[in-house]
């Protein structure tokens, strides 16, 4: 960071004025033991916004996104999702998780359940829908991600790309207000990355609020409203995808982009 940037203090990644906030993160700090992994994060997101978070590995971007549904506990600062603040209160945590869909790098489908059971589990157990209703919605989303014919199979019988699309359908069937993607294509073979990104692009264009940790700059260019570059636990630079492609301001941003583009 330049000296000027240090004097400016932490970079704020505020959503445009006038929107309704779905995520607000204020003064977030987190440590793993003695290691300061997130430093003074200020970030907010409006409904319908697509925010892409990029940065070198170890920069804290996955940790940040995992704090938003409390898979990681934070030590300082405020995280508010859809008007509910994340505290130690289990009811708040449950409420936030119900309204937040998450897609993992390693898919994390339940291997002992069929695809359909994977997708209907939470709607039936958490939302208390009737099984028939849950299955109907599940089939709707499985069709949307393009694999209704795999509903009776087990995850182990599907390809990586298909598994990740099931994971997306599993999150969507809960009808979440915001979707978190934690490097959804990083564990996939190159030839199937496209089919997962395609689903995500459709979702973004339909107005889903999405926070996406990824290296796929093509995806960012196509649908992101804002891109956030993180390094060493800090937000270093915020801007539109065009800003990042055309003239990134910070030296660290340029160095990182030159490696992945």
């Amino acid at each position, binding site marked *: 960071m330049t000296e000027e940037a240090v004097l400016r203090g932490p970079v704020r990644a505020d959503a445009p004025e006038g929107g309704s906030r779905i995520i607000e993160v204020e003064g977030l700090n987190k440590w793993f033991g003695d290691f300061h992994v997130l430093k003074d994060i200020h970030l907010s997101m409006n409904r319908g916004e697509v925010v892409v978070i990029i940065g070198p590995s170890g920069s804290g971007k996955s940790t940040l996104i995992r704090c938003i549904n409390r898979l990681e506990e934070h030590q300082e600062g405020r995280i508010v999702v859809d008007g509910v603040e994340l505290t130690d209160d289990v009811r708040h945590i449950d409420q936030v*998780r119900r309204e937040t869909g998450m897609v993992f790098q390693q898919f*994390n489908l*339940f291997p*002992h359940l069929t695809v359909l059971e994977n997708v209907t589990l939470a709607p039936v157990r958490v939302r208390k829908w009737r099984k028939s209703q849950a299955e109907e919605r599940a089939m709707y989303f499985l069709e949307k991600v393009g694999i209704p014919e795999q509903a009776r199979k*087990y995850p182990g019988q599907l390809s990586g790309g298909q598994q990740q699309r099931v994971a997306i359908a599993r*999150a969507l069937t809960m009808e979440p207000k915001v979707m978190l993607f934690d490097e959804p294509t990083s564990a996939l073979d190159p030839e199937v990355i496209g089919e997962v990104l395609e689903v995500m692009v459709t979702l973004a264009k339909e107005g889903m609020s999405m926070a996406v940790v990824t290296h796929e700059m093509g995806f960012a260019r196509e649908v992101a409203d804002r891109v956030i570059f993180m390094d060493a636990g800090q937000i270093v630079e915020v801007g539109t995808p065009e800003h990042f492609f055309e003239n990134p301001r910070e030296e660290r941003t340029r160095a990182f982009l030159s490696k992945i583009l």
Partner: protein
Amino acid sequence: MPPLREPPKRRRGALVWLRTNLFSSWGNALASLLSMGVLLYLGGELLLWVLTQAHWGPVWANLRLFAVYRYPPELLWRPFAASAVVLLLLGATAGAGRRSGESIAGGVFWWFFGLSALLTLVGLVAWPVARWGWLAVGVAGLLGYLAGRVEPRLARALPWSWGASLVIVVVLLNGFGTGGALRSVSTKEWGGFMLTLVLSIVGIAISFPLGIALALGRRSKLPIIRVVCVGFIEVVRGAPLIMWLFIASLMVPLVLDVSPSAVGPLSRAMVAVTLFSAAYMAENVRGGLQAVPKGQYEAAQALGLSGWQRTRLIVLPQALRAVIPAIVGQAIALFKDTSLVFIVGLFDFFNVGNIVANQSASLLVPGGVRLELSLFLAVVYWFFAYRMSAASRQLERRLGVGER
């Protein structure tokens, strides 16, 4: 594109198998012949002894002792009725579940149906009192099977029926009141294979859920629960079962604060065997819990499942599946370890063997009949233990679906 080719033909047949596996080279052929010779010699000698020299008289003459020991002979119909109820339900379960591919209940049912048929034959030859009893048990099983086949909707009533059968079996074996056909039979009179089965089934049925609870408790966030569970597991595993049987026989009345005569030896043995087995079950289950990847917990959390739902729906099914062989191994170990209950003065199947060996008729046989009795005991134990392990392999295969 190159033309598609058939895979090379594999030659099959007994001769091909023999050549590739046993006679692929001179050295191999020599080793095969030698070991076959040794096996044939040993097996032949054993068979010769079993058929011509062994004295099976004491075994045939004491079948009732082996089955129930001192259970009143005039009330023998009650253990038979209990067996009939169980085989009936097993048959119904097997019959109703026949459509769902390879049936585990089916394998178990036919195995024990075969046993009842065999025992009917034995009854015809050497056990007159029991021939109608075993016949009735077999017929009950067959009726259950047919009922299940004809009306698969019976399957819905099965869980309740199994629960009810537990009560029926206890009432039949234990009885109540002082007079009449159902008069109470003190557990001190129980013995033989009936006792072995009661101890094993109760022990397995209780130690399995208890072991799961202990394993979960060992990973609890609450220190007090964790300490209690770890303490229990480590203390129990730290001493041999035989010692716990001693301790239980002295301590159970003390802990429950009743007179020693109020708690029968059967209850004391049951407590010791069950708790001992639960500690080992807990460690097996813990191994399975550790095998479930962290991502599974996280995915379940992210979907908003509660802690109990995560454990019950996501973690336990995967954890238990991973350790089926170890759990069944523990169940088999418990089944065989029940032979130690002679410590508290019970006469289980194994101990009846000792009694028969010391009968005057047995002592008259030159050299005694220890070897005959041991072989007989071993075959019977094997018959049950093998069925457990076969069922566990079937279960693994079925649960393995889709996990390749």
